[in-house]
């Protein structure tokens, strides 16, 4: 029905079905005695402070953006990798130019410092000349 993809679809369905069966079997024999303390969020034994759905650091977004650019480009490379030998030198050169353009993008991101994971807050680096580095100042 799906040609050569039939086994693949079977594998994916079987994976889902297997988890379903195992979890169902477990729910039959495992105890189920919930209480408010057991169902509360784990926070090292303390009562959880607020929600965990918080805003997280923007550097994750930057990594995700760079990832999308490069991943899309890897997608372009796969069909090229199969056929470029039949197309000859120019197909290779075009892809090499494409890669060099992308590497320029990487160099730009690198130079902008977005690949540095540890970055001091700007406020702190500006004011470090005047204010002494006490724990209170660092926290700001």
């Amino acid at each position, binding site marked *: 029905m799906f040609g050569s*993809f039939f086994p693949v679809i079977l*594998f994916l369905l079987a994976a889902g079905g*297997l988890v379903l069966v195992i*979890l169902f079997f477990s729910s039959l*024999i495992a105890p189920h005695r919930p209480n408010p303390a057991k169902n509360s969020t784990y926070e090292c034994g303390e009562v959880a402070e607020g929600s965990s759905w918080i805003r997280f650091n923007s550097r994750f977004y930057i990594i995700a953006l760079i990832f999308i650019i490069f991943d899309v480009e890897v997608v372009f490379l796969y069909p090229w*990798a199969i056929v470029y030998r039949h197309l000859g030198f120019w197909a290779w050169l075009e892809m090499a130019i494409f890669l060099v353009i992308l590497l320029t993008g990487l160099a730009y991101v*690198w130079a902008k410092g977005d690949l540095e994971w540890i970055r001091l807050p700007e406020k702190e680096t500006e004011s470090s000349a005047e204010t002494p580095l006490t724990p209170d100042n660092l926290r700001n």
Partner: protein
Amino acid sequence: MLDVILTIAYLVGVISFLFLFVLFAVWFERKLSGWMQDRLGPMETGGFQGWLQTIADAIKLLLKEDIIPEQADKPLFRLAPYIIFIGTLGAFAVIPFGAHLIGSDLNIGLYYIIAISSIIAIGILMAGWSSNNKWSLYGAMRSAAQIISYEIPIGLSLLVPAVMAGSLSMQTLVAAQGGGFWNWNFLQAPPFGLIAFIIYFWASVAEVNRTPFDIPEGESELVAGYATEYSGMRYAMFFMSEYANLFVVSAIGATLFLGGWSSPLPFLTFIPGPIWFLGKSMVLVFIQMWLRWTLPRLRVDQLMGVCWKVFLPFSFLNLIVVSFWMLWVK
């Protein structure tokens, strides 16, 4: 009809193999870590060297209560183990265990593996976000950032065998390496095949979140990362796919760079292909375990730095040079 029956039989075989591998690998890793740290590891359950320990653990997890926190996003919380396990077992469909032992020899097999493995990152992010737990969220964010970053060097270094064989079909990729170990891809276009293999191997260790790249679930700082709120059999699903993924990345490495099921020397072809394939994969699995118990954990800035500043430029240049080599030298 016969095709369907054979496919189902193969599927049952692969699932049994997966379970056996996980049970064995968990026990073996505990024994190995014990041996490397000059202690015994599990000794009691089952008599000889505690070989029944993981089976006992699995039964224990099956009998444990399944707790879903009150604050969790329940539909996503329930869905996450499915996504992760589908991503794991899905990859097995195109891994060639032998000359005819393959679920489906897709003409885009390699591409399919990369695509289906990426789904795991979504499952991990889903698990961490839906738990509504700070440890889970931090673990998931770090894990997603790490997995997607290392996916690019992996994608680029896996292109090198594809360029060499001119195909994405897994069986064609193995067949191109037949005849002896000097035809294996890691020895092709020296040293660029080897560079691709090294980049792939290191990035794959990071891809399965194992030490020295286990920042997403470093017990000493993040409890258990994205799996913190999971318990019972739901947790076991995460654990199982983690070990199954260990095999998947090793099997891909063995297939694409170490000749897959082909024998290292021409006169050794009487030994069946699956034995060669499993042997090569297990060697890579063993190296990953060895690394885990030898190296300390990297810092997160070192982790991202080595990916974006070392692996990525090198795999790019490697690809350009290898494709040029294939055009002119071959």
